């Protein structure tokens, strides 16, 4: 942990090969009101040691995407109907369910949003960590597993972990609990760590510390992080690449710098405009996007953002726009890019 007098130094980044590749992932929820297309044809990839941000407003399908990657979307309503999730060259959607136990925690892990509710109140921290470690390191005795738990807690910035390990969740602060949740998530040395709004429920000062910890863990272990958030500020701090999600689809994706400097989808632009900034401190009213996103069980044929988009015309309502790509690999689904960027996927109706 750094104190305010020390200068915080960014840990060095080493980005390697592609670890996780998601192709045309679709997770639909079958409810009595109809089929809700929460995740509707996502494509993205994450490299070793890289952080991909998935940004979007509430209800756009971010969390469902995260759960789908662990095959834990709430059954029986949710079903992943198509797609591939290729982890280290193998599609985990093809694996039988019993084998998923060895993928969860050890290949893909996840930090949940609310530390106050994500730890089991009736078991001690040590118990909850050791039970998982016991699966990751089979055959190791209890003492060894406890030692590992203490080491990992220390790595996540828990002070005096050998004493805290007998504590119960209610004896810890929110920030401390989230560190414990983080420690659990990395205890199986996963290749991919999904962070679903891990700092939303924390105090602002604790947030910054937590993000630094995650970066340090990434630098030490080379874990790939998928960072789900609605906070553009956090994205700017954490991510190497960013995918903007709207109504179940990724509408824009690219290198952080490229997306931030040149937002090309009107939704991304609007999202950027609604971030409060120091430069525009004199502005009296914060920009907000008019209207509501479409209901996921009643999606329009055309562009899903059309009803809120100031540039929308007849074409936008007729067909979902093709995906366009610039020379840096930055992609966006918007008709307005036709002729400017290279078309990489066809329009759909």
């Amino acid at each position, binding site marked *: 942990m750094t104190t305010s007098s020390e200068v915080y130094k960014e840990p060095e980044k080493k980005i390697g090969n592609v670890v996780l590749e998601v192709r045309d992932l679709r997770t639909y929820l079958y409810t009595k009101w109809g089929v809700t297309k929460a995740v509707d044809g996502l494509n993205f990839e994450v490299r070793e040691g890289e952080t991909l941000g998935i940004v979007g407003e509430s209800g756009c399908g971010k969390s469902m995407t995260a759960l789908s990657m*662990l095959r*834990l979307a709430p059954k*029986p309503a949710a079903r992943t109907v198509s797609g591939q999730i290729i982890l280290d060259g193998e599609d985990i959607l093809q694996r039988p369910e019993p084998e*998923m*136990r*060895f*993928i*969860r*925690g*050890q290949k893909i*892990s*996840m930090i*949940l*949003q*609310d530390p106050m*509710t*994500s*730890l*089991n*109140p*009736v*078991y*001690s921290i040590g118990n909850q960590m050791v*039970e*998982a470690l016991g*699966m990751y390191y089979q055959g190791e005795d209890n003492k060894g597993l406890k030692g590992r738990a203490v080491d990992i807690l220390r790595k996540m910035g828990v002070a005096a972990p050998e004493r805290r390990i007998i504590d*119960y969740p*209610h*004896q810890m602060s929110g920030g401390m609990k989230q560190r414990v*949740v983080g420690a*659990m*998530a990395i205890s*199986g040395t996963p290749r991919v760590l999904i962070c679903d709004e891990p700092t939303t429920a924390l105090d602002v000062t604790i947030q910054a510390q937590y993000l630094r910890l995650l970066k340090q863990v990434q630098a030490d272990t080379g874990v790939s992080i998928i960072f789900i958030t609605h906070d553009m500020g956090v994205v700017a701090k954490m991510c190497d690449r960013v995918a903007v999600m709207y109504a179940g689809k990724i509408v824009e994706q690219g290198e952080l710098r490229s997306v931030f400097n040149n937002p090309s989808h009107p939704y991304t632009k609007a999202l950027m405009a609604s971030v409060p900034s120091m430069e525009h401190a004199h502005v009296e009213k914060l920009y907000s996007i008019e209207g509501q996103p479409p209901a996921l069980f009643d999606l329009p044929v055309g562009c899903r953002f059309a009803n809120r988009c100031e540039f929308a015309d007849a074409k936008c309502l007729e067909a979902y726009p093709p995906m366009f790509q610039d020379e840096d690999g930055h992609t966006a689904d918007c008709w307005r890019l036709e002729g400017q960027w290279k078309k990489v996927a066809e329009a759909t109706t």
Partner: protein
Amino acid sequence: MQRYILIRLIQSVFTLIGVSIIVFSLARLSGNPLDVLLPDEADDETFERISELWGLNDPWYIQYFTFVKNASRGEFGPSFKWQGRTAMELVFLHLPATLQLAGFSILVSVVLAVPIGVMSAVKKGTLLDTVGKLIALLGQSLPSFWLAIVMIWIFAVKLGWFPTSGRGGFDHMILPGIALGWFSVASFMRLTRSSMLNVLDSEYIKLARIKGLPEWKVIWKHGLKNAAIPPLTVFGAIVVGQMTGSVTIETVFAWPGIGLLALQAVNARDYQVIQAVTMFISVLFIGMNLLIDILYAYIDPRVRFT
């Protein structure tokens, strides 16, 4: 933890005092026992003599203190109805029969209700859940005395599978056990199910799955211990309810337990026995609740440390 238990113990003592006042006054509200016990032709002199002998002429507070003093030693005086026996003797004489029946039906309740409740929550909306709901619905809506009579008619009279009444071997326990236990199976099962549903929805269950724990461990370790708290609360009431609520069942099946004793004592206005039975059951109830409170602390660390 010790402090928590000590506080609960002290609270129990106060509850006990309250109960003793109620028991004492309730018995006196039903009228003078001598009106029932003495033959109609008894003269005033005899009436007066016996009143004096049994302390019925003393002021109520003297009677109360005598009652408390004796009760704390387990002495409730001789029975009016069953000459030559003390009230407490009668309670202990009938206790084994009640314990046997209640124990059997509690065991069956728990063994049935907990797994069915948990599995109905896990497999919500499936056939298993529907069957569970049906069992619960019937158990909660059928009056136990009616169930008892119908079961006797079908299984004892028509089919002749079980004896109609009385205490004897294991086969004597089946019908009264079901009649007595079905209701508690129902309430216990429903509570376990709804409590489990809440728990299964929680983030820590999600986290347990994310860690890669096998499903049985997610449900029976992480789920059940949290879900057990509300059913545990009613468990205490169920246990005692099985003993006291068996008044009707014991009557229908002529089961020689405390319930039957209480009923006969009430009919004869046998003060001492009524008081002995009521106090005994109250102590049982209070003790049971104390035990449940301690169990809470064992299950939930948030109770233990406050």
